[in-house]
């Protein structure tokens, strides 16, 4: 086997690997990209019901209800629109009324969001960046409003 042929084989194999990986990645992307919606987005351009998506905003004060059987219901707001959410399971440690939350799940036809996962992405600043973004777009995020990071941003 000459050096040139060997090199061509390695390059060919490499291209094959990359091609397979690209094909895999593209098919996986099609099904598994999770788009993020704020409550206002859901009202203006509602996604098809049944598609897995993420929503985020502030847990409305006084909206948290427990049925005593392990299910919870609460409302997520960006102060312009509000979405009702149900969830069965243990809420994360950082979950609190009046603070940011991201939930992953599906929207029912009735406009109820059934969360399969509630994330308080173990962030020490209590404010998931998507949520901060969504609030800023809704024009209600005031970093100085006391709700923000409890400690300085360092440096």
């Amino acid at each position, binding site marked *: *086997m000459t*050096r040139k042929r*060997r090199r061509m*084989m*390695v390059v060919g*194999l*490499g291209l094959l*690997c*990359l091609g*397979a*990986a690209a094909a*895999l*990645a593209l*098919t*996986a*992307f099609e*099904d*598994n*990209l*999770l*788009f*993020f919606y704020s409550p206002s987005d859901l009202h203006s351009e509602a996604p098809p019901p049944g598609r*897995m998506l*993420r929503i985020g905003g502030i847990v409305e004060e006084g909206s948290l209800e*427990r049925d*005593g*059987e*392990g299910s919870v219901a609460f409302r997520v707001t960006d102060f312009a629109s509000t979405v009702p959410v149900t969830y*069965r*399971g*243990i*809420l994360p*440690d*950082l979950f609190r009324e009046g603070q940011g939350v991201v939930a*992953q799940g599906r929207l029912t036809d009735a406009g109820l969001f059934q969360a399969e996962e509630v994330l308080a*992405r*173990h*962030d*020490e600043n209590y404010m*998931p*960046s*998507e949520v901060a*973004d969504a609030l800023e777009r809704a024009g209600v995020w005031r970093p100085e409003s006391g709700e923000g990071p*409890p*400690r*300085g*941003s*360092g*440096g």
Partner: protein
Amino acid sequence: MIPELGHFTLVLALLVALVQGSLPMLGAARGRADWMAVARPAAFLQCAATVLAFAALTWAYVVSDFTVLNVVQNSHSAKPMLYKVTGVWGNHEGSLLLWVLILTIFGAAVAGFGRNLPPSLKARVLGVQAWVAIGFFTFMLFTSNPFERIWPAPLDGNDLNPLLQDPGLAFHPPLLYLGYVGFSIAFSFAIAALLEGRVDPAWARWVRPWTLAAWTFLTGGIALGSWWAYYELGWGGWWFWDPVENVSFMPWLLGTALLHSAIVVEKRDALKVWTILLAILTFSLSLLGTFVVRSGLLTSVHAFAVDPTRGLYILLLLVIAAGGSLALFAWRAPSLKAGGLFAPVSREGGLVLNNLLLATATATVLLGTFYPLFVEAFTGGRLSVGPPYFNATFLPIMLPLVAVMAVGPMMAWKRADLAGVLGRLKFVALAAVLAAAATWYIQEGGPVLAALAMGLAVWLFLGTLWELGERVRLFRVPAGDSWRRARGLPRAAWGMSLAHAGLAVAMAGMIGSSAWKQEEVRVVRPGDEVALGGYSFRFDGAQRIQGPNYLSDTAPLTLLRDGRELGTLYPERRFYPVQEMHTTQAAIRTNGLYDLYAVIGDPQPGGAWTLRLYLEPLVPWIWFGAAFMALGGLVSLSDRRLRVGAPRKAAKAAAQPAPAE
């Protein structure tokens, strides 16, 4: 006074690094031995200065010196001493200091052990190391000085994030950094080789132990982090394909490839250019891992820095380090002489396949991790790539790799007989098929992938043992002879077998816990019993307990099987008043085969609590397997051929003059 001393020594270390990065490099270019000789004492001095700076910061934490801003932000007088010390690196500034500390220690180690390195290579390696250090020193001094004072000093500090107050996580960053920084040595050797225009087996013999050490530490660090996520986050999962996990996993994947391609350079003098490229890419990914996580680009518990100047500086450093070295590679690599030839079906061919698959897997992880960032940068849309993406792309690439792994070590160098090797493995193949069928039968219509993967895990495990058995001619010669042969095997061979078998064990654990996990969520009142997997958990009511810096609600659960009491689990929910944060302490009871995992959630009206129980089959095997892999790395490191300073052949090769090409 001591913090100022720390600041001063940090500046001193930067100045020394500037000398070390310039004079020896010039000396190597002009062939001046006296200039090159500066590198060695400079590396020692730089290391000593950084050790002093680190000691000064540690001292400030230990005595809770609240005139130092960094201590105020991350410590508290009531914090246990262990977490005061580990708090030193539990924040942005301190973790950078730890990084650079390890870097200078490794630099000093190269300077100390590298007596028989060709002087120009040594000068260049230490010079490149110095430049990496300069990047970090300037970053710290200009944007994230750990010694900044605060006036007036507050009475007490803000405490460390309670999630980080945990023994598992306390030692996770140092291990991870030992891994990341260890790859910096491979990187420096690669750049030095490009500058020298020469790569030979002696070069690989130097790169291999450092890569091996880095890989071993990184394996340990990732396993520890995954273990921490498992018991501390209370979700019963051990890997989430979270961006911060991915950025530590990518250097591991490429580092594994580098480890294997360095063998080919050493043994067969082939794949040189590729190995250099891998060394550069692996370290670039390590830098990316350190920086992207620290810069807050990806949200996580690790994200400390949110200052935009830091983000810019980080980006600049990355561009210089990765872009500069790749440009150098493009310019100089064609001048490297190609080495030994081999047929596609050979040990080298197998290792090339290993490298291709690992590099492809790294690329898919990289794409999934950074795709959301690109989308946000270009369209402003927010999206995330979930675990299903990674499972769908990563697994189909890794499974063939595992299939090849059992065969590769049995193939001969240069040209191998694939049919012959497969024939020798026929019993192993039979066992693997039986294992897959048995798994399929037992799980009664569970995922097909689980049965297939379990068969592959058995294939790898038995295949590795079989190879070892053939080497010592087990059952073919008297047992005493086999024993003598086993003792005569190089440690590197034992290390490989341990690491490969360890991966098989860890794989079985991953399959078991992903495919057959059982879960139960219930609201319980005192006296209630919850059944799961043949066990019964009795809730006896929650108690409030005062910890050193937290309040705890502990819910003792009596574990019963067939009405017999087996013991008590104590899941806790802690409240840290200083940070107003709750954390979950899972209670885990293991028997080596499966874990029982209990978490309590929030209190419900009427004295009830949410209780979440998991039965996690084979999860402990993940950590056993990872421990075996790390142990394999250590055993291989102790091989006399690799022992630093000892290699006779390396000394001979080094004694030859290094001609410039």
